[in-house]
């Protein structure tokens, strides 16, 4: 199993969620994060003082799926969250060795 971690623009969350539900992704965890990448933040003026906003608000999705679904999920995320503009975000894939469903004790693929 793999964990797919996607950092996307906040307002794309609903589209991504809908698309993933549609292709049968059974679970998803979301957190609010801030980040920078190519998109470097910008300057603002507050009470006459210029200051740099270093981090921009993003949303992080963690989705654990069986290995064979990884590429499909990644594609779907890209389709939905791509605006083509800087700051669209990134996807990371990491290995997951074990999964347990707390309610039933089911493990691994059955737990997803």
């Amino acid at each position, binding site marked *: 199993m793999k964990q797919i971690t996607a950092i996307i623009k906040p307002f794309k969350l609903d589209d991504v969620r809908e698309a993933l539900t549609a292709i049968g992704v059974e679970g998803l965890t979301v957190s609010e994060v801030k980040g920078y990448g190519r998109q470097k933040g910008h300057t603002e*003026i*507050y*009470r*006459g*003082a*210029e*200051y740099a906003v270093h981090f921009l608000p993003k949303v992080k999705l963690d989705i654990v799926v069986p290995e064979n679904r990884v590429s499909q999920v990644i594609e779907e995320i890209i389709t939905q969250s791509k605006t083509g503009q800087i700051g669209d975000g990134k996807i990371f894939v990491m290995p997951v060795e074990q999964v347990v469903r707390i309610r039933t004790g089911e493990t691994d693929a059955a737990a997803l």
Partner: protein
Amino acid sequence: MKTISKRANKGLLTALMGGLLLIATTGTASAQVTGETDFIFNSFLFLITGMFVMFMAAGFCMLEVGMVRSRNAATICLKNVTLYSIAGIMFYLVGYKLMYGGANAFFGGFGIWGADDALAKANDFTKLQDDGVNYASGSDWFFQMVFCATAASIVSGTVAERIKLWPFLIFTAVLTGIIYPIQGSWVWGGGWLSEMGFSDFAGSTLVHSAGGWAALIGALVLGARTGKYGPNGQVVGVMPGSSLPLASLGVFILWLGWFGFNGGSQLALGSAANAIDISQIFINTNLAAAGGVVAAVIATQLIYKKVDLTMALNGAIGGLVSITAEPLAPTGGVAMLIGAVGGVLIVFAVPLLDKLKIDDVVGAIPAHLVCGIWGTLIVPLTNKDASYLNQLIGVVAIGAFVSIVSFVLWQVLKMTMGIRASTEDEMQGLDKSELGLEAYPEFAAS
């Protein structure tokens, strides 16, 4: 007569004019206000407008709590509630007599305030009217007390987020018990400045600049918040206010209270002439604030290409402070312009202070000190009894007095108990270090 305040003199004048009118119109004596009715009107004016001025304490609290970071929000609330309490107690125990006791040209006298309504109880309203004090003595105390509290409220915002609680409270006690009353006695207590002809209707200098000077000196002695300025003086940490809606609420409350502040400073309601004057004061107060807001909105749009809400809020206060020295004489249009200049002064003074590395968390120095000076100096434009020179002397004298005494006091506090929270306490916020709690414990704030 020194024992009668300048403020009271105004009432006296009205009473005298009322008397003349009385003579002129004996045929319609029934049209007159009786002495006791006059007494009630005047007392009621003090009490009702005083309530609105009291509510300004809530306005300051909300403005300040909205402009500090959430980690210091509970502390600023505590300071505001407590400073208002201290002001009331100190003004009762010491301040009122020191201001209005009329002992000499430089301070009033010593003693606890006590009611004196013997003449009224003896039904001698004529004497009271002749003396220009035809109101319940307690209503006057209440009205003067809330002014004293206002001066203290100004300081807390400037020195927020880094000052320790107890030295701040001690400073407040001295400010409200001694510093404010002494300089107040010079003008409203009938002292040397009023003799000289200095004019400050509702306190642009006596209340607002006085508070502003105390705040400025506090900011200088304390230093800026850790991380606010870079080595070359540029702002590196803007530390934006945590709740602009609460700050906006605060400004609305202050604006509301200001009708009481300026309107009640007419000091009398019991004649048609007074009612007419107070109406003009309301209009001018409102238009000056409106001018301040609109000027700040336009100025920030032109300069920064974006409208800055916090400047617009400061602009309202700036407009209000600007008109406070003379809210009666101008026409509405002139009042609006005086306020608008105040709003523009804000927009330039805020970044200027930053350039000087003077860290004023809420913008109290631009609004209360800078606009207080402006408002006081411009009085002669519309009030022909005032002179520019006298106004300048008053501004400088009070500025010097408040600054010097505040400086000594801040220094003494610094050297004895220390006035500045440790950097660690400052970083984690005073709410945790001084109060052991959080203002918004459930909302994630780092």
